[in-house]
């Protein structure tokens, strides 16, 4: 949107990073690396882009968001709590017995989640179906899907990439669909380049018929501008390749494959949160640090 309040969005993203670390530390497991790489994109979507009403999560005209890389859902849970879908206190129930905040998103358990994901490769197909369904219903709502780079190795992703620009033509082109790749370069086992390189990914996507935008996924101004461009594009869905850093914001996690799927210990969490929040420590962070320090002593 025109003239986004970047300072406000950056502050929300910083808060999100703190809460991601806090949630995962309490849970004792989860995926910090990808949650930290995707958070800036999600913050712009939830707080500067999508139309939704947290009191009416099934509102027909809402924009839809599908986190196809479902393991990074802590980033989404933070945004949903901040937006008012559920109380922030629920964040600390992540991955606990009986919590609607499942380790990977559960549509039935948590209103506001649009599709169960986490079995990689499926979210884009589902998002494409939503975009088509909305077009058929004459709705102007948009659908946003975020993919992981390791996930791009799944065959089902390419099935949907092949059909996305063609489906619905000529009356219902899916220009209401915007896909963003969280290109942090690391998957569970190792660097994506070492496991199965995606390159040249922009050229591949263009060859499949997608308009492609190539951006820095941590620069919210760039994210927002790309989403603007996607919204202005007619006749085709848009694909945004967002270059990101796995573990962004925490020095010892950045670009380290080992932090794909490992929760920080309380001491590590305190260090991480201090780095994210900066010195002097803002007042709102102090109780979180104290809480984690207490966990460390136990």
């Amino acid at each position: 949107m025109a003239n986004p309040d970047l300072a406000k969005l950056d502050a929300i993203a910083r808060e999100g990073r703190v809460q991601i670390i806090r949630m995962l530390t309490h849970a004792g497991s989860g995926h910090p690396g990808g949650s930290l790489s995707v958070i800036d994109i999600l913050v712009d979507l939830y707080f500067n882009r999508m139309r939704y009403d947290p009191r009416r999560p099934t509102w027909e005209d809402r924009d839809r968001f599908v986190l196809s890389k479902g393991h990074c859902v802590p980033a989404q849970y933070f945004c949903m709590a901040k937006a008012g879908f559920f109380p922030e206190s629920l964040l600390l129930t992540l991955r606990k017995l009986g919590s609607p905040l499942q380790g990977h998103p559960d549509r039935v358990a948590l209103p506001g989640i649009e599709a169960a994901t986490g079995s990689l490769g499926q979210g884009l197909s589902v998002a494409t179906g939503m975009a088509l369904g909305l077009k058929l219903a004459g709705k102007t709502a948009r659908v946003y899907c975020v993919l992981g780079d390791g996930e791009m190795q799944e065959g089902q992703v390419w099935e949907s990439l092949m059909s996305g620009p063609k489906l619905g033509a000529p009356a219902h082109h899916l220009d209401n669909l915007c896909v963003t790749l969280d290109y942090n370069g690391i998957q569970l086992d190792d660097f994506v380049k070492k496991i199965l390189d995606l390159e040249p990914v922009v050229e591949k996507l263009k060859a499949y018929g997608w308009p492609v935008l190539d951006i820095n996924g941590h620069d919210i101004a760039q994210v927002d501008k790309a989403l603007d461009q996607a919204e202005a594009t007619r006749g085709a869905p848009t694909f945004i390749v967002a270059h990101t850093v796995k573990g962004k914001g925490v020095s010892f996690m950045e670009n380290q494959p080992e932090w794909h799927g490992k929760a920080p210990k309380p001491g590590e969490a305190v260090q991480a949160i201090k780095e994210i929040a900066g010195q002097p420590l803002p007042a709102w962070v102090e109780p979180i640090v104290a809480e984690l320090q207490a966990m460390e002593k136990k």
Partner: protein
Amino acid sequence: MPAKASRAAFGETLIELGATNDRIVTVDADLSKSTMTAKFAHTYPDRAFNVGIAESGMIGLAAGLALAGRIPFACSFACFVVGRFETIRVSVAYTNAPVKLVGTHVGVAIGEDGYTQMGLEDIACIRSLPNIPIVQPADEIETKQAVAFAVEHDGPLYLRLTRQNLEPVHDGAYRFAFGKADVLRPGHDVTVLATGGTVWNSLEAAKKLAENGINAEVINVATIKPLDEDALLLSAGKTGRVVTVEDHSLNGGLGGAVAELLAEVMPTPVKRLGVTGFGESGDPAGLYRKHGLDPDGIARSVTKFLNR
């Protein structure tokens, strides 16, 4: 009423229902001429989507369409539908997306194309998932009503359809009731539970058995999941012997479901008839004889079972 394939009755019914319900859409993966949705696509071109030979994408797309308020029928051969089990498991079942999955060309009855095209494990796969009922109609009239039910049903559903023509087993007064077993022939010596293409064969078998003084109760189990437990227990309690007949693997199908129910609730001797091992190419009648699913084979198995 002449014999008709349930896939054909499905295709015709969908066109009829589509005239008054524009939420109905079809999603195919290059088999619409075989799943019989091609005419729907011709009649309503803006509501039919062919994604190419990409069944995972087809099922995922259907899930999204369903979540956005459409009523999608995602159609392919049964083996290719459940071949994308992981997508069904997460995007349909766990997401609880009201997709109507349609698997045609079930069983060895497809004949010459051989094993790779035969849906033989689909009931077993879908049975293992919460949220997705399984309906397999036995003739044209039941198919038409089952399709109408699928449109109205607020949730996912798996519809299992045959390539081969099915002789009618119901008259015009029949009313399909989801979740209800359908007693086609009352009897007291043995309960024969059949589904889909083997229902008519089981009725023919019952006639042969009657000639030898065996009075078989034949029940059409159109809703395989959830089973009509009350009706099945009532019949099994009366006859004390249960035979299941299906064109599906012996493992995990109707026979498995019935055996699980009876073993837990009312232990009763059960004989399961179905397909063992892989299917193979051949003429459908020959394959039914080989697997003992023809009327003579069924009658022979029932007799042997009662005499053991």
